[in-house]
């Protein structure tokens, strides 16, 4: 692991009132990766998208305003944009090839340490449902921050999460039966 504080983009963070990008990136990397794993349902893809997210974030770090959102929210917003671009590309590719090669890779667990039925149920959720679970439960973003990432209202965000949890419960029951 490299020393992330060795090259600081913000030479005088105390003066500018925000942390150095490297410190934020090191702190938020796992969260963004987890979010993208849930959103895409694919760890390999999530790795690529996470790297791309941090690349983009690095380029636009000067425009980041800490008064408007927490670093985690800001990074998840960028990650979501990157992921949606990937979904679009995938949709075009699927349409072209009419196959979805990723089906083979989906046997891999989304998250380590989860019971099998829960892993299976998570896989059956839509990306939209998985991403709200990731944001609210795994990353523990509050309602307004998650809603900001998703570009929807706070109520819509809570409703989506409630439905996702209900579906998870039903699917776990089905697997148990």
């Amino acid at each position, binding site marked *: *692991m*490299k020393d*992330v504080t060795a*090259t600081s*983009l913000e030479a005088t963070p105390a003066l500018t009132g925000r942390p150095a990008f*490297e410190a934020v*990136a*090191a702190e938020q*990397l*796992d969260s963004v*990766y*987890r979010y993208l*794993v849930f*959103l895409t349902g694919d760890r390999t893809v999530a*790795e690529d998208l*996470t*790297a791309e997210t*941090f*690349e983009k974030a*690095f*380029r636009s770090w*000067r*425009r980041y305003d800490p008064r408007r959102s927490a670093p985690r929210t800001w990074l998840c917003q960028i990650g979501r944009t990157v992921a*949606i671009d990937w*979904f*679009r590309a995938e*949709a075009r590719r699927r349409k072209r090839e009419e196959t979805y090669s990723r089906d083979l890779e989906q046997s891999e667990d*989304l*998250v*380590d*340490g*989860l*019971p099998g039925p*829960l892993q299976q149920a998570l896989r059956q959720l*839509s*990306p*939209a449902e998985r*991403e709200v*679970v990731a944001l*609210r*439960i*795994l990353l*523990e973003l509050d*309602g307004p921050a998650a809603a900001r990432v998703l*570009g929807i209202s706070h*109520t819509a965000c*809570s*409703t989506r*999460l*409630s*439905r996702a*949890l209900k579906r*998870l*419960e039903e699917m*776990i029951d089905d697997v148990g039966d």
Partner: protein
Amino acid sequence: MSATELERMEALLRGDVPRTAAEVRRSALIGELRGGTLRAPDALRARALADRPEPARRPRPSWKLAFVVVPAALAVAVGAALVHGLTRPANNEQSASFGTVAPKTKAAADQQALRSAAAPSVAGTSGRLTHTDASITVAVPDTDDLRDATNEATRIATSLGGFAQSVEYRTPAEGGGASYLELRIPAQNVQRALAQLAGLGTLVSQDVSVKDLQHDLAVQSEQIAQLRRRVAALKEALQSSALPEAQRVLLQIKLAEAKRALAQRLNARKGTLAAGATSRVSLVINTEKAGAVPAQRSRIDRMLHSALEFLAVEGIVALYALIVVSPLLVVGVVVWWLARLRRRRDEHRLLAA
């Protein structure tokens, strides 16, 4: 989905104690999800946190720039108005002082300037056909003098071979009064008429314009000569007995057109000669109470007035620009909103699959 359900779910997310069996189950599910571990692989960590060259700093205009640009634009607008106000009165003063020779008082100087200003424009037109259009405003002390001056003005016009085309005489009950006369004076006597009319009272203003009609007259005379020659030639051609019938009809049509054009040109020349023969003089006689000479405004007053006028023009231009641009802005906003809506739907469809 009821509001209470959502509130309870939010409470469970915050770690609140479950109250029902369903909540116990949901709380357990949340706990299980939070209990899972998912860390970024080391390869990704190295990739995401790798050294990168610092991105080139591109200056981006901030919205805060508006705080500078808008006041600066306003300052420029006001500055331009002030410069306009400072320069314009100076020019006016220069033209107002034309013809004054060592005036003892301002009023006397104005009178002298007004009387002398008309002289060159009329005197310099001898030998050429010109039309003079003059307007004079004089002030008299009271309504008795107003009546006398009006009669005298009519008499002056008649004595010089002209006439009063219209006379309007007003003496309102609240005091003061004015009369408006439209006089026609023979061209050769207009200068004398102006001098005599100016002597009816205190001269308030005098405006004389002379239009040279010599060129118009020459053009019209040349056209008339040409048309006369054409008419004569057509008549001569029509006298030939060997002329085919179709050709004869055609020539007759051309002859009729030439005659009509000739009549028009003759009328026009008659009008030009008539305009040159008589001059039009508009005379306004005011009582001093009603038509007091407006007090000369100070330089600062004139400057401010001029600056305000200029600012008003700037405002009109800005308003016009806003009216032109605003429909485009509205279209732009609608297009942006539709594109956003479409993008949102697209995202929703992608992630709901």
